[in-house]
């Protein structure tokens, strides 16, 4: 379970949000909303431990994520704006390495199966520099298929994806939630997960009153 209490975050002198509290229980999904520059990405990066919050605590199963460190990282998966794939390596090599970094040993068969499910059949062995933007995003998203992390932190997972791939991601998220997983994400495209209650967290500019509002 992820608990955030009284979180405040700023970039430079600019206060992005303050007094932000929410809880995320197994099987729950939450969308972070807000206009450009309202701090969505900063919130997700704070949840990853990249940014130090000004105030407040982030607890994972009752322990502070800064103290849990590796124990927390074993339970979470972060997918940012950047794909974290190497142009020189093939989709297969990229997927096996990124799975290896997150502590999952992946054999060639499993990796190829994951890439095929992401719609990259026949492209597994090509260097990713020859793939299109959307296909590279699919290589990065293939990590969702092979990860056993409980908490998914997804920053704009749908960017550059076509309709088919969006449907696939919705399916993957639904499967993950059914396994008692947790998802927190941002998007500017509609993402519908059937049969799940979607919670939203709206970040408003700090100047205009409340830092964040749960719905």
């Amino acid at each position, binding site marked *: 379970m992820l608990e955030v209490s009284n979180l405040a975050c700023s970039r430079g002198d600019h206060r992005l949000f303050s007094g932000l509290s929410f809880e995320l229980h197994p099987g729950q999904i939450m969308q972070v909303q807000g206009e450009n520059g309202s701090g969505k990405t900063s919130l997700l990066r704070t949840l*990853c431990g*990249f*940014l*130090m919050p000004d105030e407040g605590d982030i607890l994972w199963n009752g322990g502070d994520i800064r103290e849990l460190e*590796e*124990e927390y*990282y*074993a339970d*979470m*998966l*972060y997918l*940012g*704006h*950047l*794909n*974290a*794939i*190497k*142009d*020189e*390596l093939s989709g297969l*090599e990229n997927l096996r*390495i*990124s799975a*290896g*970094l*997150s*502590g999952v*040993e992946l054999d060639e068969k499993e990796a190829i199966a994951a890439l095929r499910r992401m719609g990259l059949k026949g492209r597994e062995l090509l260097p990713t520099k020859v793939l299109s933007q959307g296909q590279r995003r699919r290589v990065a998203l293939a990590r969702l298929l092979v990860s056993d992390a409980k908490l998914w932190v997804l920053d704009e997972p749908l960017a550059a994806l076509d309709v088919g791939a969006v449907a696939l991601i919705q399916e993957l998220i639904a499967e993950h939630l059914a396994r008692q997983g947790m998802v927190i994400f941002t998007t500017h495209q509609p993402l519908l997960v059937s049969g799940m209650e979607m919670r939203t967290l709206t970040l408003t500019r700090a100047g205009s009153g409340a830092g964040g509002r749960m719905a």
Partner: protein
Amino acid sequence: MSGLFMLVIRRDLMLAMRRRADVLTTLIFFVMVVSLFPLGVGPEMDMLRKMAPGVLWVAALLSSMLSLGRLFSADHLDGTLEQMMLAPQSLSMLVLGKMAAHWMVSGLPLVLMAPVLGIQFDMSAEALGILIVGLLLGTPILSMIGGIGAALTLGLRGGGVLLSLLVLPLCIPVLIFGTGAVEAVSTGLSVASHLSLLGALLVLALAFTPWVTAQALRISME
């Protein structure tokens, strides 16, 4: 723990093999700089023999600076570094893996090339042997100290120059003991003291630099 270490080394070596140009530039720079000295100074054997260790070591120092900028920056730009920091294992271990791979790609070729270049300076076989041992002990230290600088200057504009300014002064002890060992051979003194000091520096670097670099990376990511 060691699984991640090996994974990072394998990955970085694989990437280096796919971009061979980067590896070759370092090596060719080293060869060029060293070869310029006999041409510029003139063919006086005594003088060349005397300045050989200094020239070789300084050239090794400069060429290892060349590739340091790339140690973390490529991974930083494409987001891989973020994923590395989220690896459920110690970041220091991973950093050590990256340093080891950096040494294999940019330090080891210099060590192998050095005896060939030493012949240009009419170095004796014994001096060449000590030069190789010194470089074997010293070049990993350069990669490790350089790692701290590379992590601190990550994402800065003009970071390359700043990196050299930060790292070069810290490499002076390595330079002193490395050249000192070769000079000791030619004056007939014992080389053991110089080499043991280099070894001590290596152990010290192994113990502290990965941790310091990991902390520097965390600061740079904010």
